[in-house]
């Protein structure tokens, strides 16, 4: 008889080793897929690294991918910490980007500092609101937030598509509908060859580490997440705490939308997120809701995404190979979680019972 048993504890080193083992396993299965598709796995992997970290340009592209992934994953994290299963970062991203775009195209002539501040603040407000609505529904009515946040993603995406094809369509562009490009004031300045969103990302990361680890608010959040009853008895005002945490979480996803619109696209469109909102949920989960591991996972995913974009150009490997390899790696990490926390044992009692028979 085989059963599973909870491990007493896993040391940091053991945990990291298993994590590495699962990534190695994933890369091997990935190699098999690449081989079966008619390419040389070794060359493909080397090209992925070269295409994502091999030159100044490719590093800047990779950093640009890390920024939204990391910020949204942090936003998801604070929501998950209070047991609010937010699977709506995609929608919060788009509402944030939408708010920022509104100001960028309505007041293009404002001084840069003022306009960017306005765009950033409005993206926080809208992203936060998009997350607080399901939070209020959960607190006041008891509606399942997982399902509501999922649905609200599509409302936001479709609404951005509506703006793109309708009211915000740039009349001077013939053909495929696009929203007007931002003026210079609405574009994040570059810093060290990448748009300065990376500075915002680092500040937010430090802020989040400090908030969760060093403040009373962070402590309350941890207590609420781990034991809602304790939090209630301690008189924390759990509903307020949940709503404020979800506002921060949604606001972070909104900022990611603002950065992507302002720094990368210099405009808004219904494909702005590349689906990275969904990826960020996976990133937060894989990073075990801890800021530094989340950084590591974001970088890993960004390397894959950028490396595979490069593969398309350098070796003609279809871009979709990226999603396949990425997913295989994620499957392995997901599966390895189990072996971190449990072990499979042959139950002693049964053996004895068999022996007695």
């Amino acid at each position, binding site marked *: 008889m085989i*059963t*599973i*048993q*909870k491990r007493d504890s896993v040391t940091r080193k053991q945990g990291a080793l298993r994590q590495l083992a699962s990534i190695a396993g994933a890369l091997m299965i990935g190699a098999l897929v690449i081989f079966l*598709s008619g390419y040389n796995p070794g060359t493909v992997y080397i090209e992925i690294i070269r295409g994502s970290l091999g030159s100044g340009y490719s590093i800047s592209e990779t950093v640009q991918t890390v920024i939204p992934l990391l910020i949204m994953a942090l936003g998801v994290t604070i929501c998950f910490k209070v047991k609010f*299963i937010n*699977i709506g970062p995609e929608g919060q991203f788009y509402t944030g980007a939408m708010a920022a775009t509104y100001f960028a195209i309505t007041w293009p002539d404002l001084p840069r500092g003022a306009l960017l501040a306005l765009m950033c603040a409005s993206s926080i407000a809208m992203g936060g609101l998009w997350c607080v609505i399901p939070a209020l*529904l959960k607190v006041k*009515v*008891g*509606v*399942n937030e*997982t*399902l*509501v946040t*999922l*649905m*609200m993603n*599509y*409302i936001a995406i*479709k*609404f951005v*598509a*509506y703006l793109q*094809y*309708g009211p915000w369509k740039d009349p001077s562009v013939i053909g495929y509908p696009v929203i007007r490009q931002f003026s210079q004031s609405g574009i994040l300045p570059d810093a060290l060859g990448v748009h300065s969103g990376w500075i915002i990302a680092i500040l937010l990361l430090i802020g989040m580490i400090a908030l969760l680890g060093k403040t009373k608010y962070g402590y309350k959040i941890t207590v609420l997440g781990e034991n809602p009853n304790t939090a209630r008895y301690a008189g924390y005002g759990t509903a307020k705490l949940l709503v404020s945490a979800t506002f921060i979480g949604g606001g972070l996803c909104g900022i990611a939308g603002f950065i992507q619109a302002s720094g990368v696209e210099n405009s808004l469109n219904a494909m702005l997120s590349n*689906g990275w909102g*969904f*990826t960020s*949920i*996976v990133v937060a*989960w*894989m990073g075990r809701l801890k800021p530094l591991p989340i950084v590591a996972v974001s970088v890993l995913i960004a390397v894959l995404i950028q490396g595979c974009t490069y593969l398309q150009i350098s070796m003609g490997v*279809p871009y*979709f*190979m*990226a*999603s*396949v390899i*990425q*997913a*295989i790696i*994620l*499957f392995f990490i*997901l*599966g390895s*979680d*189990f072996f971190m926390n*449990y072990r499979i044992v042959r139950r002693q009692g049964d053996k004895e019972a068999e022996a007695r028979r």
Partner: protein
Amino acid sequence: MIQDIALFLQTAIIMGTPLLLATVGEILTEKAGHINLGVEGMMMIGAVTGFLVGFATNDPLLAALAAGMSGFLSSQIFAFLTVSLKANQLVAGFVLTIFLTGLANLIGSNYGNATLSSEFTQKIGAVAVPGLSRIPLIGPALFHQSIIVYLGIFIAVSAWVYLNKTRFGLSLKVVGENPSFADDAGIPVAVYQYVHIGIGGFLSGMAGACLTLVIVPRWQETVTAGMGWIAIALVIFATWNPSRAIFGAYLFGALKGLAFKFQGTSIEIGGASLSLPSQILDLFPYIITIAVLIAITLGKRRENQPPRWLGKAYFREER
């Protein structure tokens, strides 16, 4: 005008059919306590598999079965991760969608220009029931359809009967409500979960093939266009009831049909011009679903609630 409405109803029902198949599948999966967000991906893999097999063999039945099998096999990855390895269901579902969307496009990349033979489309295309299909207004909608429409209704009704009138259905509901209790009652919890996640995958795969073989009918990179997510919304809209899913799927299918029809046009009502952009129509299903979710939560009627164990892993050893 009457002809327009008749045509519209006919479109609504055929557009609703893939939604119906995927929704019924996801209802069964969720009744086992597992929420599989991989529906969109399983529809994609079914879409490409069905199309390729149909293209190669000219046999609709074989194509549909192959599509279903591809969905079934894909769902078993999810089942292994979430049932056996207790992985987070939401994450596993998202990753499954990423994986299958990539894989489907990888497989289908050379078939963007392929078309099915006219012999094939005839076999599976709309068939008019003599006489009945001439009934004004509803005739074409009900009696001039592809066989897949009737199959969809049959599957939904069978699922309802299965859930409500059989011992297996009852056991399944217990598994989704309280797996520990099911375990005590001697119900093989994990087997039920694997099987129903599998049926969900099979039906999602068929739903995808329904698009590439009957509705579109060709292979495109974005052929499912978010239908998998609408199906997940529909599960809620139908309050986990397969027979209500029939109505819901046709309603959402009608919205899709409307969105298609109103592309860039406006209609005149009493002199006022009303334009309904297709993107706005596209977001109705999600708003309606949230409204329904609020209503069933407020209504507190037991049979309308999500399965109580939905989304949670069950650790037998930690009872």
